[in-house]
């Protein structure tokens, strides 16, 4: 039982990270129908940025917001100078652009910050809390807490602010949104900034547990994409649910089946789900328009 609880706790922790990354995918997809393959790089930049800001002597509570701001700026720059100029291109072209951006960002970090592993200290110490025989890292509480705050914040943003409602309107029908006077270009910028910030947050929160390195964004990005797809693309609730489900399944598979194949298990599950539910768990069923 303690064993099960242990796997469950670590699964939820990892799942919360996937959920945060998946939310970024979901937000950008909603606004632009682009899958942003540089999302994982935002995660990496958040962690690496904080590490180096702290190494420069800044305390954690200054370094974290500063790193998030830097990554948000990177997200805005990416949208402004790489995605925006190719507005009329096909989705595949846009995907390739974000892939180019991810290679570029990885390359830039490789050159400037190096290829070593780095670790952040736990935000509130590294002593685990014991619950029913299972150890819960304090950092897990930070991660789960952050996810709860983010979800509540997003809900408030989308339902109670003009800007949030404009983003929602754009995701439902871009032309209609434009017709009622929403500046769609601004919405795109906002969505990239928001996604970058969420990614950075995920990267910073996870750095004390999993370490961080210039190339950790690849797998984290894929898992986030998987979470968003599993839940049904474009659904924020789906991305969170998909992330948690993915994290828990992965932890259980690693614990009870084979840790060597834990990454494979996640993708097998996704294939299985997609075979039977082609729009993910909570995605809208689409019909082709002729």
């Amino acid at each position: 039982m303690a064993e099960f609880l242990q796997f469950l706790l670590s699964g939820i922790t990892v799942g919360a990270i996937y959920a945060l990354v998946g939310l970024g995918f979901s937000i950008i997809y909603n606004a632009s129908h682009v899958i942003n393959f540089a999302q994982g790089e935002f995660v990496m930049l958040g962690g690496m940025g904080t590490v180096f800001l702290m190494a420069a002597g800044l305390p954690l509570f200054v370094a974290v917001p500063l790193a998030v701001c830097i990554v948000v700026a990177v997200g805005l720059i990416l949208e402004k100078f790489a995605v925006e100029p190719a507005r009329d291109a096909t989705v595949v072209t846009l995907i390739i652009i974000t892939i180019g951006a991810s290679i570029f960002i990885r390359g830039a970090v490789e050159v400037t910050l190096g290829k070593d592993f780095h670790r952040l200290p736990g935000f509130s110490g590294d002593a685990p809390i014991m619950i029913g025989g299972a150890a819960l890292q304090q950092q897990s509480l930070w991660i789960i807490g952050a996810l709860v705050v983010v979800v509540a914040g997003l809900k408030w943003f989308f339902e109670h602010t003009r800007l949030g409602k404009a983003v929602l309107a754009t995701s439902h029908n871009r032309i209609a949104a434009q017709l009622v006077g929403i500046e769609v270009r601004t919405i795109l910028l906002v969505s990239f900034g928001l996604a970058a910030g969420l990614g950075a947050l995920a990267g910073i929160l996870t750095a004390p547990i999993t370490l961080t390195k210039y190339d950790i964004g690849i797998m984290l990005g894929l898992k986030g994409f998987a979470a968003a797809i599993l839940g049904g693309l474009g659904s924020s609730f789906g991305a969170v649910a998909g992330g948690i489900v993915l994290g828990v399944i992965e932890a259980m598979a690693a614990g009870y089946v084979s840790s060597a194949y834990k990454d494979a298990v996640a993708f097998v599950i996704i294939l299985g789900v997609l075979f039977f539910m082609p729009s993910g768990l909570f995605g809208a069923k689409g019909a082709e328009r002729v």
Partner: protein
Amino acid sequence: MGDRAQKSPFNLSVAGKGHGGSKDAPLASFASTGEGPGQDDIRPVRTVGAWLFSARTGGVLLLAAIVAILPLFLPNNFYFDVAIKTALHAIVCVGLNLLIGYAGQISLGHAGFFALGGYASAILTARFGWPGLVAMLAGAVGVGVLAFLVARPILRLKGHYLAMATLGLGIIISIIINREIPLTGGPDGMSVPALWVGPWRLTGAVTWYWISGIVLVLAVWLALNLVESPMGRALRALHGSEVAAETTGIDVTRYKVLVFVVSAVFASIAGSLFAHAERFVTPVEAGFLRSIEFVTMVVLGGMASIFGSVVGAAILTALPQVLAAVHDFKHLALGAILIAVMIFMPKGLVPTLAALWRRRVG
């Protein structure tokens, strides 16, 4: 999906007629952007010149000529090796372009098929002593069957869901190759015996240059023929609209499965050749990044342009070697170039340049 060129049903019915006798104008077919046989270009072949300048003959002859002449400019084995990799990557991309460019179905997992072909050759020859060609064939058949089995459920998916599923398939293959250490050598990779064909032991960069070059020409010729066959027209029709294609009597599922299998087999054979040419395979060949590279080559060169795939493969295989001069800045430069080309030439290099050329010529 807003990412597809809109086509009128009228255009589709032209495309579906079968024997329109359409031979695209020479440069139009170099650059045919999946618009089906454009109405402007439908004209019967009259002269030897037109025959010679059509993509299927002239283009293939040009490619063959380049393959034949290129060795004169390759100073040493290192460059031959880059040329071999270019040709083998190009074979994968030519097959992948049938799937992405013509049928409009994305795959982010083709490195998996490439690696399966490579490892089938490696394992069957090294561990079980099979003759090389038989192993290669077995790999191709195995990959073909696998692709056939997964194609039906996978190709039911659309857009990004399809991307996720193919990506997942590729990653699963790559993880299996990484973990089955007794069989595959794991992350360290495994060495591959030389390929024997009858009494000949095929080794050396120059020999493999010719082998991969010839196979590439064959692959391009085959793909061009497929594109202009009823299958090619069916693919372009379903790319436009699956519902519309179905109402004109095209078995959409069958053609999608078929093109998926064909592209997977192309990748498998290229992978087998790669294993024997390099005499070594590693799981890197199966990785997600390799899959992405293949797709990038296709898009960079130009979707629905067979020659574009060859150009894209050549650039993205050779460029990192050239950029190795700037060493640390390699990835930085690669990413920047990729973004710039996609912004300024969203249709890809070959179609964009061909359109420019046509405008200047008239």
